[in-house]
């Protein structure tokens, strides 16, 4: 069974009298362990799709089912719970909570889940080591480079052992080498630990790393290639 099932998913924004069809009847299945890149020109609906899968936005039509749970059936609070318990997020920028250290950021979701302090601290150190930030646990985001910050964001997403990690242009604010390194890291986590990733990107270089590439054009799936 796929981890994420998307059926007939549409999202229409109304700007005055003007209607923007950000997504048009998208069908999509994401299997566990997949490493999926969402490509497509600006405005093609990548962010919209990720937000809908993450339960951050509600569709105009269609359904999103995550691990057998139809998001449309959930209250706002329950969707919060689902995100906290089952999903990981990496955003484009301003990802981290500036007043928390790298380790605290990494354990944030665990803290929200009520995991005991010692256990989550251990886990935070472990994931930070996984993303190559050993020794930087106590730094605040302001004391880390952009690439390091995104690694912390990945570590945070990873820490809770989510079903899927959704990443919206995680490399957009990074220079190309750093961006590349981050994608490599995510790829490595995917192959080694079996973490499922869906990420939106413009970066053609990233394509090499992706095992599945979905290309969106005008809110529709134009291509869907598995390598």
């Amino acid at each position, binding site marked *: 069974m796929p981890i994420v099932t998307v059926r007939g998913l549409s999202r229409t924004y109304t700007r005055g009298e003007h209607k923007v069809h950000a997504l048009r009847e998208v069908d999509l299945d994401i299997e566990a362990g997949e490493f999926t890149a969402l490509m497509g020109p600006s405005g093609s609906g990548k962010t919209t799709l990720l937000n809908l899968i993450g339960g951050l936005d509600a569709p105009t039509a269609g359904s999103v089912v995550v691990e057998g749970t139809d998001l449309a059936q959930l209250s706002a609070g329950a969707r919060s719970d689902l995100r906290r318990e089952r999903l990981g997020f990496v955003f484009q920028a301003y*990802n981290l909570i500036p007043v928390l250290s790298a380790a605290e950021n990494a354990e944030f979701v665990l*803290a*929200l889940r009520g995991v005991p302090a010692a256990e989550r601290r251990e886990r935070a150190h472990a994931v930070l080591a996984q993303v190559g930030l050993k020794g930087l646990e106590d730094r605040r985001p302001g004391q880390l480079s952009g690439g390091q910050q995104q690694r912390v964001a990945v570590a945070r997403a990873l820490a809770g052992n989510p079903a899927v990690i959704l990443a919206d242009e995680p490399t957009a604010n990074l220079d190309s080498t750093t961006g590349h390194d981050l994608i490599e890291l995510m790829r490595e986590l995917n192959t080694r630990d079996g973490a499922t990733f869906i990420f939106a990107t413009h970066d053609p270089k990233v394509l090499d790393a992706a095992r599945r590439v979905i290309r969106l054009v005008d809110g529709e799936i134009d291509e869907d290639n598995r390598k």
Partner: protein
Amino acid sequence: MPILLIMAWRNLWRHGRRSLLTALAMALGMAMSMSIISMYDGMFGIMRTLMIDQLLGHVQITHSAFPTRRGLYDTLHHADELLSRLDALPQSRGAVARVHGQALLGTEHRSAGVRLVGVEPSRELAVTKVQDTVPSSLPGGVDPGRFLADEPAREIVIGYDLARDLRVALGDELVAITQDAYGGIGNEVYTIVGLTRSGDEAMDRAGAWLHFSDLQALLALDDQVHEVRILAASDAQDVVGGLLDALPGALPDGLIQDDDATAAISPWWDIDPMAAQMMEMRGIAQFMVLVVVFGLVALGVINTMLMSVLERTRELGVIKALGLRPRGIVWLVLYEALLLSLLAAGIGTLLGAGLIAYLMTIGIPMDVGEGEGIGFGGIVFPSRLYGGISVEAFVEPILGVVLSALLAALLPALRAARLHPVDAIRAE
């Protein structure tokens, strides 16, 4: 420590100067309200001493007709027995018996209708503060003398203002003439030994104190008295209430010898509802001050917290996206306000304690001439008012600052909780 609390505390110091300034403003409001409460403590302390200790007592026992008629014959018998029973009550600090009369008091040349109050000085000393009605000094270096001696010696203590009206001084003799209990003309000569300036305008202008044996003799009252007043062990409502409950059982037989009368047990708020109202005004006035001061504090907090929430829209969006429920967001903001208010409470307590110390030792001059202070509702305050100290003066402003901050933060907190994560993250 919960992660939200840690975040709130660190958020506070993200704009350390702004937080400190806000906390300082809150602390100033707090110190101000502490000073005002301290002054209220001082002023209402004077009023309380005067009204309860000197004027009314907590509870008065009288003939049922005495409170309205104040008749010569509306007396109590066996007052000694009653007093010793009252002394034994745990809710009572002590009791005194008093005789009341009206007389023409004066010299060959001048006289005035005067209220006479007969007291037993040794008993009053231990219970009421009637001895304090003779001040330690009077304006213009006039010697105030002393209160009555313990044994009856045809001494009289009269109001300072009455003494001026009658043009008499310490050591002068005054004649009192009145109708006695047998319809005869009671008359006697008394020597002035003291002048009162108690703040009780009625007694200061037209009142005189006598030893109660002397007044009984003048009125031919034998050993009857008009009033037994009791001071409760404390002002607390439950103590006074307990005293009221215990009193009916403590009355000796034959206390009232009129067939058509009973003993009246009257708490001070029934005897002088105006005084009771005045004491209650304190609560209202104090509440108003707190409302105004902390209303302003709340405005400051709303402003600071709104700014703090607006600045962090994107961050709050991320936190929401990560799965913190709206209620958690509310707590995050409230914790921040709580910590801010605790900080303010700390500074404010130190500041307020300093001000209270000043008010208690140096006070505020309130002289309206002739060494007299402001008059209010039949009470004349001293010419320098001092602050008092009470648990309330600390607890109420601390509660005020914390509660007003939390209340004020509720609006920004709800606003933050309602943020839509997608919009918030996109926001510039």
